């Protein structure tokens, strides 16, 4: 118990653990500490008349989760193959995030962080938290709080 705690703090000193997810050609990073659970290719139920960014309903431990589709949020065409789901805790209970694929967990260094480029469109600026420069690619940081359906609904109505 004690040793694992120390390991964690040690890891945080050295860098931040990010879970990488892929949507289209882009890799996104989500801090692992924020992720409650990763569900594989779970069946989802579409919700008619729902806002476009709602990917559907997912059964998760006796609860019915509202899943956000990152693809639709980014105005990308719908994905035909089944998608992976990450579960987060939001203001209104749990919610899910649909991504094309969940990748590996990597450690990034705070020194490699940079803010959003000013040329990014407004929609993405509102969703992205900045970028980590990896040796061979860029990792866009997503903040689960900004993906909370409650927040998205507020943003849409205002």
């Amino acid at each position: 118990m004690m040793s694992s705690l120390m390991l964690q703090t040690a890891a945080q000193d050295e860098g931040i653990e990010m879970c990488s997810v892929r949507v289209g050609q882009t890799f996104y990073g989500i801090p692992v500490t924020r992720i409650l659970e990763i569900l594989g290719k779970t069946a989802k139920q579409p919700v008619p008349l729902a806002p476009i960014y709602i990917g559907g309903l997912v059964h998760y431990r006796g609860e019915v989760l509202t899943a956000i589709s990152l693809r639709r949020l980014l105005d990308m065409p719908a994905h035909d193959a089944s998608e992976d789901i990450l579960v987060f805790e939001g203001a209104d209970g749990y919610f899910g995030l649909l991504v094309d694929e969940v990748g590996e967990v990597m450690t990034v260094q705070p020194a490699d962080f940079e803010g959003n480029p000013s040329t990014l469109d407004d929609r993405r600026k509102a969703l992205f938290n900045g970028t980590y420069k990896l040796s061979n690619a860029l990792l866009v940081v997503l903040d689960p709080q900004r993906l909370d359906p409650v927040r998205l609904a507020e943003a849409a109505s205002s």
Partner: protein
Amino acid sequence: MDELTREFLIESQEGLDRMERCLTELEEHPEGHELLAEIFRTVHTIKGTTGFLGFSRLESLAHAGENLLGLLRDGKLLANAGIISGLLSLLDILREILGQIESSGQEGESDDAAMIQRLHALQQNDAVTPDPSGGGPPQSPPKKRRARKPKAIAPLAEAQMAKPQEGIRAIEVYQSEPLVAQPRAMVNAAESTLRVDVGLLNRMMNLVGELVLTRNQILQTVSAAAGLAVLSRRLDMVTADLREAVMKARMQPVSHVFSKFPRMVRDLAQQLSKRVRLVMEGQETELDKSLLEAIKDPLTHSVRNAVDHGIELPHAREAAGKDAEGILKLRAYQEGSHVVIEVCDDGGGLKVERIRDKAIERKLITRERTAQLSERELMQLIFLPGFSTAEAITNVSGRGVGMDVVRTNVEKIGGRVEIDSRPGKGTTLRLRIPLTLAIVPALIVHSNGQSFAVPQGALSELVHLSPEQVAAQVERIEGAALYRLRGKLLPLVFLDALLKQYEQMEKPSGAYIAVLNAEGRRYGLVVDGLADPEEIVVKPLSSVLKRIGLFSGATVLGNGEMALILDPGAIAAQSNIGMALEDDAPQAQEANTAEVSTEYLLMQSAGEPAAVPLDSVLRIERIPRSKMERLNGMTVLRFADTLLPLNDKTGATAASPETEMTIVVCHDGERHVGVAVEQVLDVAPGDSLTEAGTHAATEDAVLLKDKVTSLVNLRKIPALPGARQLGEVRETWEADRVMGASA
């Protein structure tokens, strides 16, 4: 606050509730010894415990009360209106202090000398010649006290003290239970019950919900593998029983809410100088605790309204040729999966013209629109927010909040409100509350390949249309689709179009119309297909999806698929379905009598056609044959803890116990009976046949679709062996055994 004080508070509050009940009853039966003993016990317990806990204010008050009650209990003093009013005031002060202890841990500062003196004075009060009709005036001037609750109860104590001579006997409270036996029953109940944290019960209920879901899934998966069938049936039974037990644990009799009304009505009537007799029925009817909490306010509103607006002043009643004393009836009973609570007064009834004028005046509706509305629809206007017809804003009601709150609160918990009124005769308000919230029976429908759940409560019937019928019988006025259901036009809502799932309106393959009744609106929901009804566990939706407004929740079906639960009322509102113009039932009956021929349900039983009158059919169930059991030579079916006698002619033809049977559940007078058949074929109008030579109509056959069809005679289905008969059998058996032993 320490555990001991908390315990004391809960106990005392319960005790005071009981005391209040007993006091109002005591007014009716001044010599009710049991009642007095109960009240004495409460006050005595409070006195004893407070002394121990160091609440001196409570102790001295309770002590003064105890002295007075002691005299009453020993018969040295007879309870009169003055004494009862005094004791009720004491009760109010005790409640106030308990409330303060609960919020601050302190008794609070106040001078109780006046109250104690008043109680002392009452002890000397006409002890020799008790006068039950008048009631002695309190000897000490009543002290001005502060209102305890923001409710209308507050001003009453003062009103009473000011004029104790008049109107005190105005209310008599009747209860259907034997009055004297009640306190004793309550004592026993207290001993045999256990306080359980509601949070824990909620968690248990959630778990049971999960179990139900898993069971549904297993039942569907297992139907292929035969070996598991027995096990899964057992799981089915255990789940159902467990669910019932947990639900029972959450059930409370409606008397918990009703019990505060005698006092409330008494106070209100005095305040308004009216004479009201409260009659309560069916107090033992049980309802889920959370639902009971939820209807407390709507019900209070309704009762208050009935006394304030419904029942007229005594002289007005006499002028109208009615008894000066108005009757307010509270009635609770179970009807299927609902509990119905009626608030019924014999007052002036709703004045439709005044409602209309008021609604126009308050700009809730335009004059042109009201001209199109029927009387029944105009009555519904009182449910609009901001509606109130009270001439003056009184303490009691008339603040413009009222019936709309009642309706919203009741519909929030899946219930319904109906109002029925006759000018000069009175008004009946009916609240229909579901037994439980968590698990509801629902019909699963398909639209565009997706499943949706429709709560059974709103469903009145299902109509299947073949492709040709869709083309021929669905008529349109300017795009609005209509269907002629037994000669009446039924507006149709196409689910796929509503959910924008499809561009084209019609489907090549037939359709089903689910005829729904919601919030006084009647319409047909057109869906692509139907699945079996299922007990669904309601899961809340996130706020984003709630905002769509058409779904009331989501659920997981037996096949693991998720389904959205449709909200029939919201769909009606969004599709601009108007209020049903008239009650459908009487018209349907008229149509039937006009036509002579009755409609029959056509079935196939043991390979032959058979029929039962459609109006006797309650529901149709499908069960595996193995669920049918034998009892004393007759076939029965068990539903939870009720037994259904069955008419079963299929015995010879049905081979395996796994065969799915269709049971048509009918009512024969009061009792329910079942008819086991292979399948249900159709509904058709039939003509009675007369035996050749005689003019007597046969009871056993009917002409359906030009074919002679045998009628199942429901009356001939044997009754279940009664409890007494069973007892007799047992006695003789035992007698035999005794004789055998002695021989």
